[in-house]
């Protein structure tokens, strides 16, 4: 049997290609390097997502559905790392899915920690929230400085599930834990001259890197009319999903006004000032035509750059229609009766 002494001619590399093998390898390497350079360069410039952040980073485990809309009619009592709290049956969002702990803690507008939605989750750990004091001043019969521990002792904690609508036309459903702002206001003894209340965020650039740049006029200030501040819906949150409020969500305490756009919800409050006149507020100063003092959710009043008629609920594929006062019109619309909501937007 005669074995072929050499491979069939079809398998023989032509001499010309054989001689060019080094060139071929060189070209392949250069092609790969070019591709890596171009692709890597664009990725580095932010073309494929925020650098060094991972929106899918695993959050601390959350036990059970902390706030599955239950069929129970009355208030339930629950136990969490902050002690016993009540699940207020009056404040639920029935038929809408509560957003996950991960979504609520990894998609935040908190420019003190950076302007990307993923920045606060990444950067907020530098903030020290203990010790924490709050200065109370202005039209109050008792100007003073109070400690966070005092405030925590004053009020029992309750959980409320509220819709949260950002002015950027996205929204969530959030199980906050805290106490009514009205109770706090009462404790702080405003005088009869107090018509407004202003809240100021901590100013500490070394722990809040966003404050090292003048992207807003720091510190962040927001305010409410007194009748808004004492409305039963207005809430001070100190917790989330039955846990201590994470830094990126405004620890140790923040304002929650669910019928207004999210930017009204001033975070990491260190000062409460009662005033006779409407206080200047941060976003309103930055862009008066885009962000009003009232900032009530209003699908009929568009933001100059986008429509407010619909919103994207985080976790949902299709946009949903936005509701007047974010679905709380039956409770708060009377606060604004007779007001032109296009003028006082």
């Amino acid at each position, binding site marked *: 049997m005669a074995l072929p002494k050499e491979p069939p001619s079809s398998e023989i590399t032509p001499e010309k290609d054989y001689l060019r093998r080094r060139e071929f390898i060189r070209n392949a390497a250069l*092609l790969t390097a070019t*591709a890596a350079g171009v*692709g890597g360069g664009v990725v580095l410039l932010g073309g494929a*997502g925020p650098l060094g952040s991972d929106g899918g980073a695993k959050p601390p485990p959350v036990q059970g559905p902390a706030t599955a809309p239950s069929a129970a009619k009355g208030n339930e009592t629950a136990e969490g790392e902050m002690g016993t709290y009540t699940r207020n049956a009056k404040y639920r969002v029935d038929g809408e899915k509560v957003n996950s702990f991960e979504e609520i803690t990894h998609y935040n507008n908190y420019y003190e920690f950076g302007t990307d939605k993923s920045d606060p989750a990444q950067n907020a750990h530098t903030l020290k929230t203990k010790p924490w004091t709050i200065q109370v001043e202005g039209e109050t019969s008792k100007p003073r400085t109070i400690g966070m521990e005092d405030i925590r002792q004053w009020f029992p904690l309750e959980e409320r599930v509220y819709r949260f609508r950002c002015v950027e036309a*996205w929204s969530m459903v959030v199980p906050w834990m805290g106490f009514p702002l009205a109770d706090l206001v009462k404790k702080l003894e405003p005088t009869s001259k107090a018509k407004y209340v202003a809240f100021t965020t901590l100013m500490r650039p070394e722990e809040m890197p966003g404050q090292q740049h003048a*992207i807003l006029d720091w510190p962040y200030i927001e305010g409410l009319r007194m009748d808004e501040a004492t409305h039963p819906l207005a809430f001070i949150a100190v917790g989330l999903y039955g846990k201590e409020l994470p830094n990126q969500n405004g620890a140790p305490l923040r304002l929650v006004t669910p019928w207004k756009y999210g930017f009204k919800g001033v975070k990491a409050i260190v000062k409460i000032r009662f005033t006779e006149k409407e206080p200047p507020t941060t976003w309103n100063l930055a862009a008066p035509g885009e962000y009003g003092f009232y900032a009530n959710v209003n699908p009929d009043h568009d933001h100059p*750059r986008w429509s407010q008629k619909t919103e*994207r609920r985080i976790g949902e594929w299709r*946009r949903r229609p936005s509701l007047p006062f974010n679905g709380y019109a039956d409770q708060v619309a009377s606060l604004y009766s007779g007001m032109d909501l296009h003028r006082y937007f």
Partner: protein
Amino acid sequence: MAAPHPWLKPGVIAGACIPGAVIVARAATGHLGANPIAESLNRFGLCALIFLVASLACSPVKMLTGWTWPVRIRRNVGVIAFAYASVHLLTYVGVDQGFAWGTLFKDVLKRPFIAVGFLAWLGMLPLAITSTDAMVKRLGFVKWKQLHRVAYAAGVLGAIHFYMRVKSDVREPLVYASVVGTLLVLRVVDAIRHPKPKPKPRAAPRPEPG
């Protein structure tokens, strides 16, 4: 002889696909944050602007360095920019707005921010269509070059669109705007310093002395 650097064009095109693939992969695996639609929309737009600026930079880089390779990939980079701009537009129209044409139409008319972005894409459309060798031949190089100056307008509009999008931190958009501005100035300065010789009118037949 084969064209020098046979690896250049395929390398650039392959590399240009990487960020897009990363965006899609991250969005599909839940690694693009809680709002992957908005995030990928922004990222596709940024990629479009980056490649558009890169395509505008090709000629000035050649002017400054004498290298010829940037000009050889210029058209490819421009088409890549258009591709990203189109994906960005489609993400907005289809995924974000769910093809709600009524709202979309009103948005373009009512909101300068959307209109400017749309105009930038519209400006790039004829450039992408005429990006083939055959089209260069058909139009003639001089006309083709004139048409493709629209790329600068698209770059300026793209940078403005980016600037108008952000709420308060305009540093990043300003970087892109200043790069586009610098490139434009370089071209204008070059045009002034080296005026193109006017195409000579065809010489009239000299009267022959009789």
